[in-house]
């Protein structure tokens, strides 16, 4: 059952999200932030103003009317950047720092892994890999990778 929230969202000419509260106050540059970006991406999304103050809380993305959900989703997709690694093509060395060439859901790229400790074990079998610039790469299921990728990865775990 979808109940319309008491605020309105729209996108302005600068591509920024605008939120108008029930009281008629308008905030520009509103940013949706997932509270659990990895473990539960669709549960709990905060709409915060540019100063980091929370304006609204979305319990579940599916609660929102379609139009607003589309706005929030498009804004999220423009902000979220956690490429998911599908395949490891090559690694420059098994000692760190090592340059990895990977195939992700967002295309092929290379990044530098500074140390093994930058590979974070999430709830098994997921892994989160931080590169030297702090971009996070996700491996959703490391056992589902193909054999060569698993062999590469194994040397770092």
């Amino acid at each position: 059952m979808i109940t319309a929230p008491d605020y309105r969202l729209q996108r302005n000419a600068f591509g920024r999200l605008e939120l108008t509260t029930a009281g008629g106050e308008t905030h520009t540059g509103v940013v949706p932030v997932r509270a659990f970006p990895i473990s539960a991406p669709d549960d709990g999304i905060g709409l915060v103003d540019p100063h980091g103050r929370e304006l609204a809380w979305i319990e579940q993305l599916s609660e929102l009317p379609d139009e607003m959900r589309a706005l929030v989703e498009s804004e999220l997709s423009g902000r979220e950047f956690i490429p998911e690694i599908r395949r490891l093509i090559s690694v420059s060395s098994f000692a760190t720092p090592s340059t990895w060439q990977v195939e992700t859901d967002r295309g092929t790229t290379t990044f530098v892994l500074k140390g093994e400790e930058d590979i974070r074990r999430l709830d098994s079998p997921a892994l989160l890999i931080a590169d030297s610039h702090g971009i996070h790469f996700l491996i959703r299921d490391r056992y589902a990778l193909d054999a060569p990728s698993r062999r590469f990865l194994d040397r770092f775990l």
Partner: protein
Amino acid sequence: MTAANHASTAQSAALAKVSAPPLPAAWTERVQPQLAADEEVLAWLEIDLDASLRFSAGIVVVSNARLMAMGSGDESVHSWPYQPGLTLTRSDHAGVGTLELCATDERLAHWRYTLGTDVAAGRLIDHFTRQLNFHLTGRLPAPAAPGVCPSCETPLLAGDEQCPVCSKEIHQPPSTWTLLRLGRFARPYRGQLLAGFTLSLLSTAATLVPPYLTMPLMDKVLIPYQNGQAIDPALVALYLSGLLGAALVAWILGWARTYILALVSERIGADLRTATYEHLLTLSQEYFGGKRTGDLMARIGSETDRINIFLSLHLLDFATDVLMIVMTTAILMSIDVRLALVTLLPLPIIAWLIHVVRERLRTGFERVDRVWAEVTNVLADTIPGIRVVKAFAQEARETSRFRTANAHNLEVNDRVNKVWSLFSPSVTLLTEIGLLIVWAFGIWQIASDHITVGVLTAFLAYISRFYLRLDSMSRIVSVTQKAAAGAKRIFDILDHVSSVPEPSTPVHLAKVTGRIELRGVGFRYGTRSVTRDISIDIAPGEMVGLVGHSGSGKSTLVNLICRFYDVSEGAILIDGVDIRSLPVAEYRQHIGLVLQEPFLFFGTIAENIAYGKPAATRAEIVAAARAAHAHEFILRLPHGYDSLVGERGQALSGGERQRISIARALLIDPPILILDEATSSVDTTTEKEIQKALDNLVRGRTTIAIAHRLSTLRDADRLVVLDRGSVVEVGSHDQLMACEGHYYRLYLAQARNVDNEDSLSSVELARAADGERL
């Protein structure tokens, strides 16, 4: 627009004529045809993401006529000539930068890129703004200033040729032949090593004598006796004394060799440990922030020990084994070539087997190491936090965490052992088969009168030793791999270049007046930009208070001024010199730091006060303690200044510890003083005492104070209000209160809380009074 921005625009205008770095080869072909005859490329940014955040190459170019963008996906070229109202801005979030081109009423375009190229984006905006200005006002950009990095335009330090920003980005993997790198530590002991090797050679030769003597014993004594001849006692005595002599010589030489080499390897291990620790301490705060204490302790402690044992025992044994094999082969060949060849037949097979297993074991042992560090990390996490664990009754959970880590350890070990356990028996089997071949071939040869029984006996005696050695040699595989893994982990530390590098041509400041200038300082931690474009000038002797919510970047700023981290953008100057061009240790001697939680080392109070100046006299220590209002409570302790503090030492209260750390800062008499929440962990009464101590400390020094309680900053000459990494207000308490801005709100919020506290305590007092009356 503060003074800083003026400074930076003046500076950027000055950079205008610096010729742009050449376009990347991949783009030259596409950009060049687009350019008009007199058009010149000034800056460019290679972007690696498209609008939907997929990896895809593109380029944004600033020329003297327009802004241009193209992507690898399509052939079209987008172009925006300079016109009033255009702005180019960048922002970043979670590792992705956004560059936005806006007109006054709408966004014209935006581009995304990963932060590796963020510096180039900054440069692009710089050039764009400058050109736009030029087109609108007709003011010619000023000529270039020297000493700027050609690729990112960070001002270079005096004498430094390499840009500190760009050189940070180099990532080189260490070489695989890590163990050979230990040679650097072996070099000082060349003499002893040579002596040890010679002794090995001699003692191995001595051990090879007895099997050789079995040949004449067999052929000249035993076989003739069986054939009816009497035994010659003199001959027997000669051979037997030969056996005894060889054994004695081998014993003495072996002892000398082992002793000398153990001595040397112990020293190499100790040197390695010290070098690692020494290097570790030079690494920046950033490194320690990213590592766990347990892991670092394991590396310096047990890894060096493992390498040490490898050098003193395993490598030595291995060298001896190789010598023995070479010598044995020579002897066997000299006795009988054909039999020798047959005897040596299994050797290549075993060598191959060793090689196969080596590869599998190496990765296995590396993993075992990492898993072991995981187990110690659990300990390092839990034991310091034991109060929290107990308070929340989570012992069972922590135990299960340990059990999980341990189970993981077991599992990995099991996998390695599966390969490893197969290894030794296989070698033994091969040994037996080898012996079998020698027996069969030998008997056949004796039957056809090619060799004597003595020769076969000697061969069998040699070969059983020989294969025995091969068996022990096979053990070298695992220990070498373990040691190599250990060496790799050690060299990981040694190879780590401090992110706070020493300048190549340091500038020395004889006297520091304490003038600090921050010029457009920005700092990025990972992908999060913590502070941006902060510019403050602090006069010598001035006291500046940093104010702001937690997370506003106050402590980061202090860390940057102390050079625990290096700025990502901009520069910090002391007396007009970039702090990056001063030797790190020398620079920090000018700074006295008092932290929120004073750290006392294990040792006496006097030692702790004199930590920054170990040569201080007792009179100086007492004077510093007096000035810090610590003298009296120190005298109340049972052993006065000789009382032990620190871990397991005398328990001191927070205020007492703080005053000791103030005395510590006073003793080195620094021109610059930094108080990082020096009074916030104590109650108000203690705060007053500490404040008195601080008043002595602050006098005549440039002071930067962070305080959560605004009341403690009343004496500050100037307050700098920070919010989310930027300076929002600067002024004295009265000025800031008058303008009713950020500071005013902070102050009011706190004042309200203080009032509440006061009213609460008065209520309690009243209650207590009531209680007494009843």
